[in-house]
């Protein structure tokens, strides 16, 4: 077993994860990931037979690859299916299974990558495919440092100040982006064997586990070519937009977390600026988009 740090949690895992190792383990891990029998079939209330939620458990299946049971916010059991191997299961552990765990723990988790600038965190949110990871890699080439790739947990300290907890992941970029951003030299192994999405090492080997959150940027794709624009969002609009960026939102709803998440976001908003970046996701526009965004972030 190895111990990792992700989203503020110490994870003791039988699977070898592409995450930052925990610096020093004092006391018990927060979460255990281990191999075990996971029964079939699921008989849940959900109309999707590949997942179900009960009071204490989330069951999640990717047919032909892996089944998970996430229990009591501290245990992830997994069973491989068919000819799948450990490496096939890991990306699903670090996406949906992790999302289930975070919601069971009542944490505010956004579908957002993150960078740091001047010692403060900037979260970049948006739907899959909008270009978060590519923009983050480009920001990192312009003076920012990587803080997280896909999930940003926001937790407030005793004074109420929000902190962003890193997911401990390196960049994950599609082959196309790696080529366009000239990152081939830093390209690592694929996320899964055969997939053309790769781990890409950050410029700096280590980065902080958490930083005070200063800005949340919401990425929106323009369907027609147009100059990108950055505009601040008013609190009511920011509230609605951030509720739409919750990581694994169906799980949050099934676990009856929506009310709490609303409260957590409302408590976060007075401390941060929320910007909207509307951009047409062509690589040719990327440098300009980054400059325009940095002008607002500085």
């Amino acid at each position, binding site marked *: 077993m190895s111990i990792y740090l992700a989203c503020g949690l110490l994870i003791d895992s039988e699977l070898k994860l592409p995450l930052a190792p925990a610096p020093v383990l004092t006391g018990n891990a927060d979460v255990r990931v281990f191999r075990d029998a996971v029964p079939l079939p699921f008989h849940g209330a959900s109309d999707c037979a590949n997942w179900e939620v009960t009071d204490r458990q989330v069951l999640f299946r990717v047919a032909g690859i892996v089944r998970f049971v996430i229990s009591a916010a501290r245990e992830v059991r997994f069973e491989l299916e068919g000819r799948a191997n450990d490496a096939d299961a890991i990306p699903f552990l670090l996406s949906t299974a992790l999302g289930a765990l975070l919601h069971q723990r009542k944490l505010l988790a956004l579908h957002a990558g993150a960078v740091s600038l001047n010692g403060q965190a900037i979260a970049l949110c948006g739907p899959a495919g909008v270009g978060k990871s590519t923009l983050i890699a480009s920001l990192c080439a312009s003076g920012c440092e990587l803080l997280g790739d896909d999930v940003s947990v926001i937790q407030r300290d005793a004074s109420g100040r929000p902190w962003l907890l890193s997911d401990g992941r390196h960049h994950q970029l*599609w082959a196309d982006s790696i080529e366009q951003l000239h990152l081939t030299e830093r390209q690592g192994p694929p996320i*899964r064997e*055969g997939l053309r999405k790769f781990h890409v090492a950050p410029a700096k080997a280590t980065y902080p586990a958490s930083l005070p959150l200063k800005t949340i940027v919401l990425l929106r794709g323009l369907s027609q070519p147009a100059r990108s624009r950055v505009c601040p969002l008013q609190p009511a609009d920011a509230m609605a937009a951030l509720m739409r960026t919750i990581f694994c939102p169906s799980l949050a709803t099934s676990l009856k977390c929506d009310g709490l998440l609303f409260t957590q976001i409302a408590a976060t908003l007075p401390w941060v600026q929320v910007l909207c970046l509307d951009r047409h996701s062509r690589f040719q526009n990327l440098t300009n988009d980054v400059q325009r965004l940095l002008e607002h972030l500085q």
Partner: protein
Amino acid sequence: MTGNRQIVWLASYPKSGNTWLRLLLANLLYADEQPVNINDLPLPEPRVVSRATMDRMTLIDSSLLLRHEVDLLRPDWTRRMLAQQSGHGFVKTHDNYRLNHDNEPIFGRDRTMRALYVVRDPRDVAVSLTHHYGCTLDKGVMYLNESSASIGPQIKRYVNRFDDVLCNWTEHARSWLEQTDMPVHLLRYEDLLAEPVSTFTAAIDFLDLQVTPEAVARAVRFSAFDQLQQQERDTGFRERLKSSTAPFFRAGRAGAWSGVLSAEQARRIVDAHHPLMEQLGYL
């Protein structure tokens, strides 16, 4: 909820008239005094090829799946999604008809399914592809002629739809026209241009849609190319690719390839697709 359900796959190779067919159907079934908005088609479309919809339904980040794994899971996803469907559903797809590794059609099996397959002279398709993807004519020709064996096994960027052309033009058309899992009706783009009312009426009859000749005539009028071009000029068209070098509704002509393709480029297409082109009346 299967009582009055009918699922219609609107299938074609890219740039062959699929969008036009959808506009004809939308204007037939849902237009009032004005043509339907090209950016907000009221045509009911079960989102069975939408990655975001399937990801929400299954909680699986499908961008982590390999193509053959998606194909294995699609029949079940489609079945679940269609279980919530009533009435007509029209699904656009550029998928070639194929079986997954379990020998199941990736579209699932459903007794209510039918398909309209639109085909267009591949030489005109090559020209249209070139404008659509912003690539050279040679690349457009190569794309059209590429066999399933030479197409990359996995996507190299995020795409928001599952449907994918994994074969060349002939293989694509044959995959739909020769499958026997669901009834299929063939429409030639050129016939839709030359004889829109009768060609569209035959498709409507195939689908057992009860409509008046006046409604068909109005749908054809509302979907005329100059109408579509005007709407695109006024409001843009969301299906136009970022890399496109021309409007989506560009020319809408048949045979324009002869002034664009070199003799060598046209020959390469004919050499690759001669039997089917002949069978479909293009030679």
